[in-house]
């Protein structure tokens, strides 16, 4: 399993949720993972129901089995100041630059600069070792930008090509690229079983591959439970309404005679079954499209009661059972 796990996907498909669940899943006994966020949205804090995360690694959860999950919200402005401090010993001038808005300006006119600061910080955490030579984190999981931007985001070398050809940022980009293009990294894409996210996943994989970035797995999220399968649906269509009415009646739902309560349930229940069948077919088509992409697929269930901490642990357990740790 690669030590840097990048989670992307179409907006709203569950990148933040899946990244968090993955960080929990990978934190098996005695292990430590770092969950990083790069878009300044405090999605991790919301998910773990804690106050906003500072630009500082902190422990936010203990995983099932005892591993630890740390979290970090990377702030590109502060990361840049850190660099300037480290390489140019700017002191107070750094603060003045920030006050002038120059830091914001620099990261805005040069998005590649911002990206290399973000990925750089994550890669630094991947490589960091403690005094005994052990990795500080066994895994780093990144809640990354969406599919439409992920390739540019990770392909920092190209993005900073127009910037200064020498100096710390340039070296940083080189170092980052070495990690990102190696088997140390895996980029996973989260999708739903719907046309648009699946299309975006296919496009995203093609782009990542063209840029020689290591594509990991496809994480199908919010999968609805299969209540009836294709055979059942065929059987439903072939069953007399009267039999269904009788069966409903036998279950205690009223009279089966025309106009009886059970009989009046038959039409709407069959209508719901037809809707279910239509969606079932569509989902199967999308699953087939995903299957052709030739990557391992994982499926995470739709949590009917909505997402909360307990739900997150449930997803983490699910990922472990599917061999993601």
């Amino acid at each position, binding site marked *: 399993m690669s030590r840097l796990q990048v989670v992307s996907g*179409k*907006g*709203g498909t569950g990148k933040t949720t899946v990244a968090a669940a993955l960080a929990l899943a990978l934190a098996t006994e005695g292990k430590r993972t770092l969950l990083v966020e790069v878009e300044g*949205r405090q999605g991790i804090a919301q998910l773990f129901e804690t106050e906003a995360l500072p630009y500082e690694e902190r422990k936010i959860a203990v995983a099932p089995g005892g591993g630890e999950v740390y979290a970090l919200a990377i702030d590109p402005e502060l990361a*840049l100041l850190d660099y*300037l401090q480290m390489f140019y010993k700017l002191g107070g001038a750094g603060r003045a*630059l920030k006050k002038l*808005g*120059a830091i914001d*300006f*620099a990261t805005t*006119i040069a998005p590649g*600069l911002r990206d290399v600061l973000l990925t750089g910080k994550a890669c630094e955490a991947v490589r960091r070792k403690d005094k005994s030579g052990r990795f500080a984190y066994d895994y780093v999981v990144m809640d990354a930008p969406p599919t439409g931007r992920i390739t540019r985001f990770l392909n920092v070398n190209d993005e900073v090509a*127009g*910037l200064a*050809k020498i*100096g710390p940022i340039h070296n940083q980009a080189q170092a980052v690229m070495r990690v990102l293009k190696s088997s140390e990294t895996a980029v996973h894409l989260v999708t739903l079983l719907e*046309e*648009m996210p699946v*299309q975006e996943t296919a496009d995203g994989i093609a782009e990542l591959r063209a840029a020689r970035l290591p594509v990991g797995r496809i994480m199908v999220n919010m999968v*609805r439970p299969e*209540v*009836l399968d294709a055979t*059942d649906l065929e*059987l*439903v269509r*072939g*069953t*007399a*309404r*009267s*039999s*269904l009415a*009788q*069966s*409903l*009646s*036998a*279950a*205690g*739902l*009223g*009279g*089966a*005679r025309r106009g*009886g*309560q059970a009989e009046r*349930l038959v*039409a*709407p*229940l069959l*209508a*719901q*079954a037809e*809707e*279910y069948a*239509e*969606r079932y077919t569509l989902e199967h088509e999308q699953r087939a499209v995903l299957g052709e992409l030739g990557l391992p697929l994982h499926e995470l269930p739709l949590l*009917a009661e*909505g997402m909360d901490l307990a739900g997150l642990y449930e997803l983490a357990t699910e990922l472990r059972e599917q061999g993601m740790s």
Partner: protein
Amino acid sequence: MSPDPAKETKDSSRHAQDGTRHHLSPARTLDLDPLIDDPKTRIVVCCGSGGVGKTTTAAALGLRAAERGRKVVVLTIDPARRLAQSMGIDSLDNVPRRVKGLDDSASGELHAMMLDMKRTFDEIVEAHADRERAAAILGNPFYQSLSAGFAGTQEYMAMEKLGQLRARDEWDLIVVDTPPSRSALDFLDAPKRLGSFLDGRLIRLLTAPAKLGGRAGMKFLNVGMSMMTGTLGKLLGGQLLKDVQTFVAAMDTTFGGFRTRADATYKLLQAPGTAFLVVAAPERDALREAAYFVERLAAEDMPLAGLVLNRVHGSGAARLSAERALAAAENLEEPRIVDQDGGKAGLRNSPDTYGSSEPAAVPESAAVPESPASEPDSPVDPDRTVEQLTAGLLRLHADRMRLLSREQRTRDRFTALHPEVAVAEVAALPGDVHDLAGLRDIGDRLAAGRPELPETDA
């Protein structure tokens, strides 16, 4: 923030006959046909957070307005591929194309286009600068990265395109989709943000040293410039800063300021004849965004027509609760021996208020075989199979009812916060919406305002 909630909520018990909605504090039903038919309505903007159905709603409304006789253009942004194909706009060309296949009995027209932000930006440059200068701007590396997708460029260009379409005055009605961003507010804020940035202090410092002749100016400039050229130059490389300088200087003389331009299009949104529709799915995040947007529109004096609650689930059997459906399903799935007793016990205890006491009355259609003829040799007990299938149907129903009540709760929270907002509900269709027939269906549902079209076969 919520002007007189009591006034409008009284007379709207139209949903009352729908069993799922009896506990609802009813919101006003949004009546869309009068809005799109009104010749005074010139612009409808569909806003909302990502994936809720803005593009679908915009296209469906445009189609409906056209089929009701108006000459309409729909500006879509990032439509699903098949939907774009069905409207004949799948190749980006940034100009409205007439959509074929309409019912034009009311002699309306539908034109559609897909926003190409880079092309739109290029066109602005070409329109405002002479050829030589335009070529210089278009070739500037900073311009190229700006137009290819800077934060806010898409929103800025969507506004710009709207302004252009409006200025052409060729259409009765312009329906605008908005870019897919996580926050609905981005559509309003991003253009100004980008405008301010490009017109901002640092860019001034970088670009106009000659203009700042004053002593104080010089002093500030020296400190600023030395740091800029020093540190930023080291970071960004001198070339990028030069590119930015030349770009801004070139744009400035021809274009008259990004911020000014953003402000001008913004005003269009406040003009009479513009109406906003907020689109949301009945989910917590989407409705929270919708609430922010509603409050913001009010603060900006921008007219909100209402909320389109898209992908709402309904049920024709809402009188059967999830709990009862599950209990009944379990009852049917119990092993046979237990089942016979349990089934009867269940029946005796069954609160059948309609008093149909017959356990298994044989209706007229009893001659129909009870299990599909396709499996004559099936070792499965046919009754057993029917019971299992019925249990499956009941489980599906229980899932549906749980979903319904979750959606209802989320929706009620929004209504409590904004009882003044009229709502049109659109049912979640089982499949995608990817052709004119699908759009027409959505249009019918939008106009009906209720999630379920009247049942025909019940």
